[in-house]
């Protein structure tokens, strides 16, 4: 019991001096989904969403801090208040919308694709690897294929390489770099369009912050800077906003 009290007082003392004039916005991301978000070689969060998040924060005139969290528990930690928003390549879906609120989308619906070692594959009957809790995982179940779930995106590719799965199913922009740089891997089947684009997720009780960031996203859409950023990170062929 003494320990409990000690921890609380220690934490209270540590934080007592901090200024609370304008709260820092804590941005939660996964840090394992290049080029959306990843930890670069200096150990910092990098990627399209890093650039986007920093730009949105400067437009909204808020101070921001990046936090990484496992994909599995990324929504529970948002709702219990460990960070203020999720910006982690999360597709807007009705299912997630019941728990959190999404901002204006910052990426239009992008295709998901299958990567495999051979093109003679019956995708309806194959073992397909997808990341746990993603729209891709839900889709694999709908197609009737056998779903093999992994906690991180890197592991679904590893599962195809070592033969555990026949194909990996993820956002095409993530797989594009992987497939390009591995002569054994290729895209198979048709691309699938899932979700309603990607957006930032907020607590349902936090409408002001969501409004602030939605406005900044709309402003970036209007002046074309968002499209520029998309093209810079995802190449000329990437879908942009009208």
């Amino acid at each position, binding site marked *: 019991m003494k320990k409990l009290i000690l921890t609380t007082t220690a*934490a209270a003392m540590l934080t007592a001096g901090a200024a*609370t004039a304008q*709260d820092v916005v804590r941005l939660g991301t996964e840090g394992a989904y*290049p080029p959306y978000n990843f930890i670069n070689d200096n150990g910092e969060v990098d990627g399209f969403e890093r650039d986007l998040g920093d730009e949105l924060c400067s437009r909204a005139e808020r101070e921001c801090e990046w936090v990484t969290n496992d994909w599995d528990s990324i929504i529970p930690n948002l709702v219990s208040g460990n960070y203020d928003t999720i910006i982690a390549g999360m597709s807007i879906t009705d299912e997630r919308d019941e728990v959190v609120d999404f901002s204006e989308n910052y990426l239009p619906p992008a295709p998901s694709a299958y990567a495999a070692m051979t093109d003679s594959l019956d995708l309806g009957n194959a073992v397909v690897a997808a990341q746990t809790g993603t729209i891709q995982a839900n889709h694999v179940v709908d197609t009737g294929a056998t779903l093999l779930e992994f906690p991180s995106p890197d592991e679904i590719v590893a599962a195809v390489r070592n033969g555990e799965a026949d194909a990996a199913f993820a956002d095409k922009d993530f797989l594009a*770099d992987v497939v390009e740089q591995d002569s054994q891997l290729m895209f198979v089947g048709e691309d699938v369009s899932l979700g309603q684009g990607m957006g930032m997720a907020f607590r349902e009780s936090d409408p002001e912050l969501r409004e602030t960031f939605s406005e900044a996203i709309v402003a970036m859409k209007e002046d074309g800077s968002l499209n520029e950023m998309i093209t810079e990170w995802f190449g000329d062929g990437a879908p942009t906003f009208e």
Partner: protein
Amino acid sequence: MFQACTDPDTLDGLAWLACYLTNGKHIAFYGSFLTVLSLLAITAPVALAFGFGGAVAARSRIAPLRWFGQAYTAIVRGVPDIVFFLFFVIALDQGFEWLRHKVKCPGWDQPIRQGSDFIVCAEAKLPLSSSPQWVHEGYGFGLAVLTFAIVFGAFAANVLSGAMRAVPRAQVETGEAYGMTHRQTFWRILVPQMWVYALPGLSNLWMILVKATPLLFLLGVEDIVYWARELGGAKTNIYAYPHPDWRLWYFLGLLVFYLGLTKVSEIVLARINDRLSLGQATAAGEARRRRAAA
């Protein structure tokens, strides 16, 4: 880190490897070994203290204290670790915030639970959302230590209460015959002698604790297993140091680390056991006496 490392694309062979192994991410990886070691160094004594408290409470003559001690060991030992680590930490964190909320924001009229959201006033957040990242990390680490200490404390309590019962009754009786009070026989006779009986059980717990540290990542602390997985995963050209899947090598490194740690622990524990056996009425104590006499 080094001047030569500014453009990794131009490097090859050993120079590339040297730069790769000293980039910021690897420094964080090396730092996480310290995190794990300091977690062990802090958790072990705290858990032992919890265990001792639990064992004393469980044999207390005051009924509510005894019930508390017995309930603590029974409940914590019965709940699977992973449930404890996933559920308990969030509950503990919310419990702290709720207490602070009650104290700091008495005028708050909105409900704390709104759907799945847990809302306390900004002053009650723990740590404050304006505090720097290291405070958040330190707080996470503190929660991890506390959770580990509670879990392992329950096992230690069971080991210690067994050890207390294993001390020969005659030893305590002799103390009583000299007129010592209950408290005196406990501290002067029972406690110094029980350790030799507790040591095998405690050393098992220590070994399990050493191997349980990867659970840290469930608590949001970036430990060696997290970094090994992150660094070992295949890297495309978007990274400065692209490489194929090297997880095997990283995990081999961890294997060596854990084996080394358990080996060192075994040596240290064997020495402690030898020292504790001195003058004890056990087979090990007898062997020691003969060795000294020869």
